[in-house]
Each structure stands twice: as C-alpha cells, then as structure tokens.
C-alpha cells in the first residue's frame, strides 16, 4: 500500500506537508507533545499510526477528495474584495489588494468541515462507530454532527452551557442532524470546559470512540493531523494566486483561537519567506483588562488539554477564563505550532477587541454583501491597523473562515447594549 510508486502519485495531494514539523514526539520546537493520562497514550499511538497509513492511501485520498469536492463544495473561491480594497485605498489609488478565501461558502458555513470530514473517514477505517467532539461557537460541532449523519456514526457533542445559550441556533442544528448535545456546566461553561469533558469521555470510552478534535490543539498527533486536513485551504490559495496573478500572495491574514483556519492557510506558505503570516487573536474588552482571549499576546508557556503551548494562566499556574464575544475564539490556549511560529519570528500575532470585531462584521456586510462570522471579523478588523502601514499595493489573502448567520443574535444584542 505504501510502495514508492503510490507515494509518488500522491505528492500533489493536499495532505503533503511542506515542513518536517513536528518531530517524532510531536514537538514544534519546545511546544506540543502529549500531556495526557496514560489511558489515552495507546489511543494516540493508534491514531497516529492510522493517520500515517491512510494519509498516503489512494482509496482514502480518493474518498476524501471526492467528498471535499461534491459534498463540501471545494475548491472554495478566492474572491477579490473590490469595495473593501477601495475602502483602504490611498488617494493615489494604491493600497493592499484584498482577497478573501471563501471558506464561509463550504457546506455548514465554515472551514471546520475539512477536518471533521477527514477525521470521520479515518474513524470509519479505524472501526470506531462512536464519535465525540467539543465545540465553542458550534461550527465544529455542526461540522462533526454533519459528517456523522453522512456516515451513520453515533455522535456526542460537548458544549459549554454559556456557549449553548449564545449559539442556540447551532445547538438546534446539531440536534436536527441527529447528534446528542451534552451541556457542560463545569468551570465557565465555555470551550475549555467542553474540551476537558470531551477528553474525559474519551478516557472512558477510548476503545470504541474516536475524538474528532476541532482545532490544531490537543496532544500529538492532533495539531499535525488537523493542520494537514485544513492545509487544502493553503494549497488551493497557492493555485488560485498563480491563476490570478502568476505569483505568491504577499500577506496572509487569519483569526486565531485554537488556530485551525490560520494553520490551514499558513502551512503551505511557511517555507515561503516572502509571504508574511499574520494571526489575529481576540482582545475581548481589551488586553489591558482581565477579559480577553489573547493567548499569544498575553499568555505564557504552559500545558493545557495535552499540549505545551502559550496559555492564559494566573501566577499559580491555574488556567484562567478567557473572554471574547466570539465563542470560537473564547479559549485560553492556542495550537502549539502557532506558539512555535511566533517564537521563531515566522508569524506575527496581534489582537482585536470585541468592539472592533463587531464594527468589522458590519463593514464587510455593507461593503461586500458578506456577513462574516465573529471569529473571522477579528481578522477583518485588523485590516484597519495593518493597511495604513503597508506600502505599495501588496496582495493580501484573508481567510474568510466562516459565515456570520450564527452570530446575528449576538451582534444584535451587543449593538442594542451599546446603544443603551
């Protein structure tokens, strides 16, 4: 199955890595690794072995690529945002040329389905009939519930009670798709607690269950595997840039919670030193307050949910609550490869407040007729800071990671509160 000839034929598939990270122990520099109870160690090894086997398996590839095309709707367009570009143009007409990678047009409305679909196909091949997942904004939960429906797998989604309230539409969608949504009241009732509870379920049911982790976080091999399953975003972008202007993009911009959409876009270009990589975190009510989720900007290295990475923690090494208007960014950790990209200086990370993100959501809606997710709106908001700093007319690709239908209630409530 892994003969050299077969391997040679798949080198152009989306799953081929462009770098050798992580190492054998799942390390990106000093970040990553496997910090989990012993019970899970054999399952992580099993998963890694299965992943290494199937990533190069032509049948797996054919099934995945076929469904990415016909079920998800890939490739997603690279759209030139003409009026947004004009908004940031200087009087002489120069300024960044802004393109949106339209992951919001995927089935289920966000990039999350790329990974959920691939992991479901993997789980099926591993003979696991029961699927669990955590969700914050509900996008990963919906994507997981969707693929479980598609493959006839049992599905349990762990979701914080606070997130269930602010993303009630997605809760309904998951139930409609046949998933059980398990409320998590522990801690702050958000993504961190839902992830812990999903891991506890996995510890308990590991022999029959596959955990579809939804970000480039968690213990090895998840950060690598989830990145690779989203790397299709970057490989398509490279191809589309070639078609549109015959070259590389100059700047890539994406929001970062755990960091899956950003890694999916960045991975293809990490080795291209001319391409600037920028991640945008959630500053919540401001990084000078206690209410933010700017892990890379304000955190320190630590261990959460199985990986060493930057982490929001108190002086005792206790994990602290994150805050963001966007449930998908409301997480005190971040994927270990982002910590590595930051420490090596390969990528830069900035943060944007709730207020700026909401303003950006309104702006994109009015200028382009695209209502972006609140998560995505953080990347859009950073254009306000970035664009005036840029010389000439660089080509900028922003990952439009999700659509904002799920957020309209939250935004309406926020705007009403601000008026009051």
């Amino acid at each position, binding site marked *: 199955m892994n003969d050299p000839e077969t391997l040679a034929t798949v080198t152009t598939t989306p799953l081929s890595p462009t770098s050798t990270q992580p190492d054998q*122990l799942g390390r990106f520099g000093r970040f990553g*690794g*496997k*910090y*989990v*109870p*012993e*019970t*899970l*160690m*054999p*399952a992580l090894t099993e998963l890694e072995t299965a992943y290494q086997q199937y990533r190069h398996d032509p049948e797996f590839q054919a099934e995945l690529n076929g469904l990415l095309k016909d079920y998800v709707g890939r490739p997603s367009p690279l759209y030139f945002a003409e009026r947004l570009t004009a908004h940031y143009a200087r009087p002489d007409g120069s300024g960044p040329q802004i393109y949106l990678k339209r992951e919001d047009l995927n089935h289920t409305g966000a990039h999350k389905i790329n990974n959920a679909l691939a992991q479901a196909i993997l789980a099926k091949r591993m003979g696991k009939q029961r699927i669990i997942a955590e969700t914050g904004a509900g996008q990963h939960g919906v994507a997981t519930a969707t693929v479980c429906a598609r493959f006839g797998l049992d599905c349990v989604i762990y979701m914080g009670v606070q997130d269930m309230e602010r993303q009630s539409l997605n809760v309904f969608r998951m139930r409609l798709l046949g998933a059980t949504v398990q409320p998590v009241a*522990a*801690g702050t009732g958000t993504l*961190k607690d839902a992830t*812990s509870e999903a*891991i*506890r379920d996995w*510890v*308990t*049911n*590991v*022999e029959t269950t596959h955990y579809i982790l939804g970000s480039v976080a968690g213990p090895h091999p998840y950060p690598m595997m989830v990145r690779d399953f989203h790397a299709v975003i970057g490989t398509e972008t490279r191809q589309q840039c070639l078609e549109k202007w015959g070259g590389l993009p100059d700047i890539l911009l994406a929001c970062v919670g755990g960091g899956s959409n950003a890694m999916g876009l960045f991975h293809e270009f990490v080795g291209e030193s001319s391409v600037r990589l920028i991640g945008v975190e959630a500053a919540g009510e401001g990084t000078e307050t206690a209410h933010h989720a700017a892990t890379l900007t304000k955190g*320190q*290295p*630590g*261990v*959460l*949910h*199985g990986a*060493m990475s930057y*982490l929001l*923690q108190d002086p*005792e*090494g*206790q*994990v*602290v609550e994150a805050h963001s208007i966007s449930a998908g960014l409301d997480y005190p950790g971040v994927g270990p490869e982002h910590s590595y990209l930051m420490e090596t200086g390969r990528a830069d990370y900035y943060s944007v407040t709730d207020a700026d993100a909401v303003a950006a959501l309104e702006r994109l809606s009015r200028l382009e007729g695209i209502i972006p997710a609140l998560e995505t709106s953080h990347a859009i908001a950073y254009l306000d800071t970035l664009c005036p700093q840029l010389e000439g007319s660089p080509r900028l690709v922003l990952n439009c990671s999700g659509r904002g239908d799920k957020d309209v209630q939250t935004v309406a409530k926020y705007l009403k509160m601000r008026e009051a």
Partner: protein
Amino acid sequence: MTSVSERFQTLKENNQCALIPFITAGDPDLETTAQALRVLDAAGADLIELGVPYSDPLADGPTIQAAATRALQRGVTLQKVLDMVRSLHAELTAPIILFTYYNPIYFRGVDVFMAQIAEAGVKGLVIPDLPLEESTAVLESATAHGIEVILLVAPTSPTERIDAIAQKSQGFIYLVSVTGVTGARTEIASRVQDLLPQLQKSTQKPVGVGFGVSQPEHAKQLKDWGANAVIVGSAVVKRLAEGTPAEGLAAIDTFCRSLKAALA
C-alpha cells in the same frame, strides 16, 4: 522521615497490603485538611495521597473536580498546601504523596517545585497528565531532591509500555483499575485480576491499585488478587465534604478504619 519505598519495604516484611486514602487539599478548608491527615494517619492509612486543586483536572471525575473547584474558590494555593504539610508532617506516620497536574509544576519550574515540596516534607509525587514520554526531566529533578515519582499504568497500556513504565516508576506503580477517570464504581474491573500478575511479573516494585475503588469489599478483593496497595479517592473526598467539617472527619475516620479492617 520515611520514604515511600521504605514504607513499602516495612509493609512487605509484615506481608501487608497498604491503604492509601486520597483527599483534596483545601476542601472544605486547609484546617480541615490538616485534621483529616491526622485522622487518616491514626485510622490506619499507610501512606496518604494529597491532591493539589487544579483548574482543569482532566483525569478526575465529578467528585474530585467539584472538590478542587471549591478549594480554588476559597483561595487555596500550592504554597498554602505546602505550608500546611510542613507544619504537621512530623506528626504523621504515613508519608505524604502529592497528586498534582503538570502545569503548575512546569509554571513554577520543575527544579524549584521539587525543592519546595521536598523542603515541606512531601515524599512522593503523582502527576496524572505526565506520561512516560514527557517525564525524563521531572524524574531526574525529583531524584535529585529525594522525591519518588510514581508513574501510572492503565488497562489500555500495552505490555512494552507496562515494562518501560514499571522500570522508571519510583516507590510503587500506580495501576489505574478502570478505563476512565477517577470516581467511585460499584465493582472492580475483572481485568485487574489479570493485570496485577502481569505487572508483578515485569517488576519487583509494589503495585498500588486506584481509580474506582470505593468500598471495603473492593479493598479486600484487590488484596486477594495480589495488590500491594489500594488507593481510595473519591469515596473519601465525598465523605469528608458531606455535612460539617466535624461530621466529615468522623465519617472518614470510620470509613478508613473499615477499609483497614478489610485489608487485615
């Protein structure tokens, strides 16, 4: 003061199975924890596992999670826990084993942490989210400070892993009896009956069984299957947390004695 290994040596000479109760430090408060350590010591505990409350206790079920959350809400910190241990460990016969997740150790600095807990009188250490692969630096530092790090083996661990873990573990080997998190179960998984001799074939070190052990009948069962120690956590934590501190202390006194009697 007696090390974990020394304690097991004595128990072995007397052909005894050790009783290791677990409590969460600071639930309901550190004064009660100090009293509970005295009570358990007097009621026959051979070693005592003391849990440091953590914000994200991945390996723990609802009982110990809730105890940790209550303790943190009352402002319990590692420093306060260690101050309490320092003040009373000399009164105790049972060596104290600290149970803590890895992040607070890493955050403090592994060497600093080991020096501090050794100075406070802690003898052993269990880190539930630090598997063998990540443990090298921790084991080295612990050894330098005279702390024994007890590694865990799970029902899912393959034979090669069991051998490697058994070789590195210090003091004893902690056999997790269930595929799951901590918390009382109604019966002991029958798999343990096969795992115990398998483990004891690969190591001379004592084997302690924990997770899910909640009744004197369980303790006796495990002793009969050849366990060198039984670890009882959630069932103790739950009893200590019910009613007033005085009622909780009385309840764990009775419970600890009943476990001890079952092991006699």
